């Protein structure tokens, strides 16, 4: 606590995203809290359906109806944005929070040149002339490594390869110089050989621009390479959050342990990859208590509490994990302790 | 760019094009159910065709407003001997194409009207040939005397010989086989109107003939152009009248008369039309067509024909199908016709029991099936199903076959029918035309000058009736003549080759809107003579 606390760029408090369906209300994101510091890269991992993409969509205000934010707050630079009017939120999108989606092949409108799509974004947010916007667009394309950008600017998306297109997408996301980029599986659809290039590019650009990234992926390899911290999601909840190296090499939550065990690590000699039995519960059948408890191999160590009481994030090693294993004597309060909202802030971890 | 110039063109044209008609041009738009079919003056003897052509072609004589025969293209006539009529022609008459009317044209037109393809042989009833005496004198040589020749000549239409020759239209269009000739699409008469535009099925436009010889007639009205628009759909036709798009409808459906009378800016002129609706049996064939009776023809049995007459409730038809606009009748002649006889105007009583009884006696206790052919024109289209139902009720299993006019008439003309419903009006207002056309033994012999049985599609043949007709045809004493006609009518009533139903009243409906207020008199033949129309 020696240095003054930098204000987190993004702060998510007790976010809950729900879908009304005919079988009742489904909670896809359940009471999660996290924050991202300026310039920081936060990785969010989890299986598909864990709620990570929805978290991203909620932050950028693009939850598809009937999905909606049921409770919680989202703060950007200390200003609450989840309750903004659609028009105000629109002004934030692109300008303060950018986004990159999974598939570069489908992220670009096939009927317009990429130049038009970039300048359009610039002109929407920045008060510049069209000529200036075009110049910026060419600069951006140069910056993301597109050769002969001044010519390519008039090409249509289908004239670019997949990797090139993702570069275009990145340039689009950065076009209005946002402070935060939500990158939702930005490399999943790409060739393995290109994935690394893109990740490197993304990281480099963000460092240069001082942009924070929320990197949503199921690929631990990408996280390991890119993220500063990582949040592991399971069934709509964050089960563990902490510095990336810690989470990877010294995971605390049994789920994270299982997840990491499933990743081949070339640097270590491991006899065999472990695998977690069973699968993530469906949203309408989330068990009470800890959502992971039916699959958890260490449930017996805790006892019935795992099935009755939901664990909050508890300090565990150098990370925080939502697991009763880390409840100290008086840690019963973990579940209801509002204090753990700030325990996951990076600075406290650093303490 | 192109679009703009197009728009400008359109706007300019709109601005320039709207006020067309000069102040005194009076256009009468006239909607009627059926297409006039042809412009050939001698081709088809159909009411719809005659209605149009009477305004374009003229004859030697005509009828005035009071229906009296008056000189027309002929100024006077004499009968030098029993077989000859001599006509003095009106000088300085021009055809529409500018050629001068002369005796040659009359001679030519007589020949043409007598041609085998002509359906208007009856318009020169009894004439054997015509002979030119000088440029303006013509003799009609009679094969037999015709005391009412003038009445026939009223609708004998004269066309230009030179024009016909030039355009290879010297013989009438063969209407039955749907032939198409120059004269079926073009016309060149001497009448008050000439054809300006003819689009079959779409419109026929006739405009006033500025050189018409009779322009100073006190009867002349002010119509300068008539657009004839065939609108087959009854509601559409009526809608057009009510909305003021057309000013004249000559065949408003009976059910709409009441409403039309109550409609503002529309008036109804009720004439008494000399048109009789009647049923005809095929009495020729030995085996009935379109029937389940094999090997014989029930219609040949008088009792069966009488059964039909007994089965028809003509009062119900009057009340429902005709909405009161008909006069039930027991004879084919009307009170307008020379020779009409009250004694013959009797109907067999409506009596289903009697009808069944007669059928039983004739050996058709279980009835038989037959097809009734009808046109789809009003009011036949309403009467046909009604008659069908009534006959079914006494056991004759009639099926109605309602056809469009261009299919219906050729079918009749081929005598390809067992039983049909038709209407008839005598343009001559004389018994001869009617009886001879409808009931005289049919003869297809060409050039015999006979209109014998021209419209006798049931092919009824009765020597006794033929004899009576032959007799009164040449009887010059009108009293004796009427007596002969009466005998013939009574014979027909006894023999019942046809069943007359009623005389229909089909009024004209026309605009009464100021500015397009039409006034016209309703002649007994229901033909609109447009030169007598006024629009104010």
């Amino acid at each position, binding site marked *: 606590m020696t240095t003054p606390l930098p204000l987190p760029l993004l702060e998510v408090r007790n976010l809950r995203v729900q879908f009304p369906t005919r079988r009742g209300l489904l909670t896809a994101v359940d009471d999660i809290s996290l924050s991202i510091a300026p310039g920081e890269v936060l990785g969010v991992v989890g299986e598909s359906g864990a709620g990570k993409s929805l978290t991203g969509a909620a932050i950028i205000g693009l939850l598809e109806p009937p999905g909606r934010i049921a409770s919680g707050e989202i703060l950007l630079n200390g200003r609450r944005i989840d309750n903004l009017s*659609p028009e105000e939120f*629109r002004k934030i*999108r*692109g300008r303060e929070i950018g986004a990159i989606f999974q598939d570069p092949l489908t992220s670009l*409108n096939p009927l317009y040149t990429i130049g038009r799509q970039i300048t359009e974004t610039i002109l929407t947010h920045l008060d510049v002339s069209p000529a200036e916007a075009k110049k910026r667009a060419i600069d951006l394309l140069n910056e993301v490594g597109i050769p002969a950008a001044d010519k390519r600017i008039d090409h249509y998306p289908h004239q*670019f390869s*997949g990797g090139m297109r993702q570069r275009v997408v990145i340039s689009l996301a950065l076009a209005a110089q946002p402070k935060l980029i939500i990158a939702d599986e930005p490399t999943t659809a790409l060739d393995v050989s290109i994935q690394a290039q893109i990740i490197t590019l993304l990281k480099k650009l963000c460092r240069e621009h001082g942009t924070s990234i929320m990197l949503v992926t199921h690929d631990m390899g990408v996280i390991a390479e890119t993220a500063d911290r990582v949040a592991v999601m399971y069934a709509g909840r964050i089960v563990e959050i902490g510095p990336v190296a810690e989470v990877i090499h010294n995971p605390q939550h049994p789920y994270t342990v299982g997840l990491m065990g499933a990743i081949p690590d070339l640097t270590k000699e491991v006899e065999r990859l472990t695998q977690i039995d069973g699968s993530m519960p469906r949203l309408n059948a989330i068990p009470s208590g800890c959502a992971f408890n039916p699959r958890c191999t260490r449930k017996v160590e805790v006892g019935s509490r795992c099935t009755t009481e939901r664990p909050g994030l508890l300090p565990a090693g150098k990370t925080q994990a939502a697991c009763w294993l880390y409840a100290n004597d008086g840690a019963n309060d973990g579940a209801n302790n509002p204090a753990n909202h700030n325990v996951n802030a990076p600075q406290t971890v650093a303490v | 760019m192109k679009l703009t110039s197009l728009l400008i063109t359109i706007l300019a044209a709109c601005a320039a094009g709207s006020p067309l008609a000069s102040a005194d041009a009076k256009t009468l738009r006239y909607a009627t159910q059926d297409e006039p079919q042809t412009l050939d003056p001698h081709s088809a003897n159909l009411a719809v065709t005659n209605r149009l052509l009477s305004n374009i072609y003229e004859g030697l004589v005509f009828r005035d407003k009071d229906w009296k025969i008056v000189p027309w293209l002929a100024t006077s006539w004499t009968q030098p001997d029993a077989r000859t009529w001599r006509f003095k022609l009106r000088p300085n008459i021009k055809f529409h194409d500018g050629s001068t009317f002369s005796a040659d044209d009359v001679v030519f037109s007589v020949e043409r009207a007598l041609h085998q393809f002509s359906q208007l042989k009856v318009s020169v009833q009894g004439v054997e040939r015509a002979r030119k005496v000088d440029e303006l004198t013509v003799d009609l040589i009679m094969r037999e005397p015709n005391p009412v020749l003038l009445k026939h000549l009223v609708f004998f239409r004269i066309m230009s010989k030179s024009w016909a020759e030039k355009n290879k239209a010297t013989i009438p269009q063969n209407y039955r086989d749907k032939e*198409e000739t120059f004269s079926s699409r073009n016309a060149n008469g001497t009448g008050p109107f000439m054809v300006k535009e003819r689009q079959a099925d779409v419109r026929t436009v006739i405009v006033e003939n500025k050189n018409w010889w009779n322009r100073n007639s006190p009867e002349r009205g002010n119509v300068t152009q008539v657009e004839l*628009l065939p609108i087959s759909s009854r509601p559409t036709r009526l809608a057009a009248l009510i909305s003021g798009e057309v000013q004249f409808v000559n065949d408003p459906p009976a059910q709409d008369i009441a409403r039309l009378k109550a409609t503002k800016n529309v008036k109804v002129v009720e004439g008494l039309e000399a048109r009789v609706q009647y049923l005809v049996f095929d009495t020729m064939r030995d085996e009935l067509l379109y029937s389940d009776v094999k090997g014989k023809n029930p219609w040949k049995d008088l009792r069966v024909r009488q059964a039909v007459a007994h089965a028809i409730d003509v009062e119900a038809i009057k009340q429902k199908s005709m909405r009161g606009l008909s006069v039930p009748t027991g004879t084919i002649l009307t009170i307008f016709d020379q020779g009409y006889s009250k004694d013959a105007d009797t109907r067999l009583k409506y009596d289903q029991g009697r009808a069944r009884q007669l059928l039983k006696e004739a050996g058709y206790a279980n009835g038989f099936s037959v097809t009734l052919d009808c046109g789809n024109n009003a009011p036949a289209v309403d009467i046909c199903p009604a008659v069908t139902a009534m006959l079914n009720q006494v056991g004759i299993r009639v099926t109605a076959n309602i056809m469009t006019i261009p299919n219906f008439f050729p079918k009749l003309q081929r005598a390809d029918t067992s039983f049909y419903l038709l209407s008839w009006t005598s343009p001559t207002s004389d018994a001869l035309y009617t009886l001879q056309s409808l009931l005289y033994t049919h003869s297809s012999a060409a050039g015999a000058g006979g209109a014998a049985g021209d419209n006798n599609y049931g092919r009824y043949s009765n020597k006794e009736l033929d004899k009576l007709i032959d007799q009164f045809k040449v009887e010059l004493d009108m009293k004796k003549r009427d007596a002969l006609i009466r005998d013939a009518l009574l014979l027909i009533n006894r023999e019942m080759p046809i069943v007359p139903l009623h005389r229909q009243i089909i009024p004209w409906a026309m605009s009464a809107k100021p500015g397009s207020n039409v006034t016209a008199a309703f002649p007994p033949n229901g033909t609109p003579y447009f030169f007598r129309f006024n629009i104010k």
Partner: protein
Amino acid sequence: MLAFIIRRLLQSILVMLTVGFIAFSLFNFVGDPVSLMLPPEATQADREDVRKALGLDQPFYVQFGTFLVNAAQGNFGISLRLGRPVSQLLVERLPATLELAMTAAVFGLLVGIPMGVYTALKRDKWTSKVLLTGSLVGVSLPNFLIGIFLILIFAVWLGWLPSFGRGETKMIGFWSTGFLTTEGLKAIILPAITLGFYPITLIMRLVRAEMLEVLRTDYIKFARARGLTNNAVHFGHALKNTLVPVITITGLQLGAIIAFAIITETVFQWPGMGLLFIQAVQFADIPVMAAYLCLIGFIFVVVNLIVDLLYFAVDPRLRVERSGAGGGH
């Protein structure tokens, strides 16, 4: 691009050959042309003469060839009903039908597209639901009923618009147009609405479906994520992508519109080809039926070609792939 057009042209020719074959079959297998042309009294010798004169003694392919040559020159023989050359009749009637069909199509687009866009963008609003259900009613209302009711309301009750015919027409060459007179313009309104009713509902539903599809795409999501305004997203991005398939279907619909004109023309006594055709069917006037068939086929082929070219203009993917330029890196 040239290759593409040539391929399309070849396809079109194939279609026209097929249609021509059907029309030819109509002539030859359905009605014996000889008996159609001669009066019943004709002798056997007459028949043989006509047969020879018509070339009916020739082998099948020669006859077909002759028919095609004649058809290509617009010679379809004489109408059995009206006794006039069919081609002449069609040329007279063609402008009326085309003007009506075009007006209806334009009307359908002008009303259908905005309604489709509206119902897609405001899919949960009650107005959208009303419009959607209303469009079902529109599809369920037979064309002739609509015409009858329109006549009743606008011609008879209100007396605003004519109930039949084309009003006054002007000739521009062989083309008679009703667009140049106020009367003509007024006369086309009711028939065009009647005829446009079905296209409106169809285009509206089509646009809605396509638009919803497009709105689900990633590039729309991405466009939103870039903070573009709703207008830019909806009308700049979504609409243009929506219209690409809409163009095709609308083009194809033009054929349907021309065919449905048969009904509209009957109700409104509109002097077009449809009225001619329906009468031809009633009177078994084979030459008119065959010629109409060929003409509709021809119009379809032309419209298809135009649609393809439009597609080309709208969708850059086609343009470039076909010309072989560009391509991926």
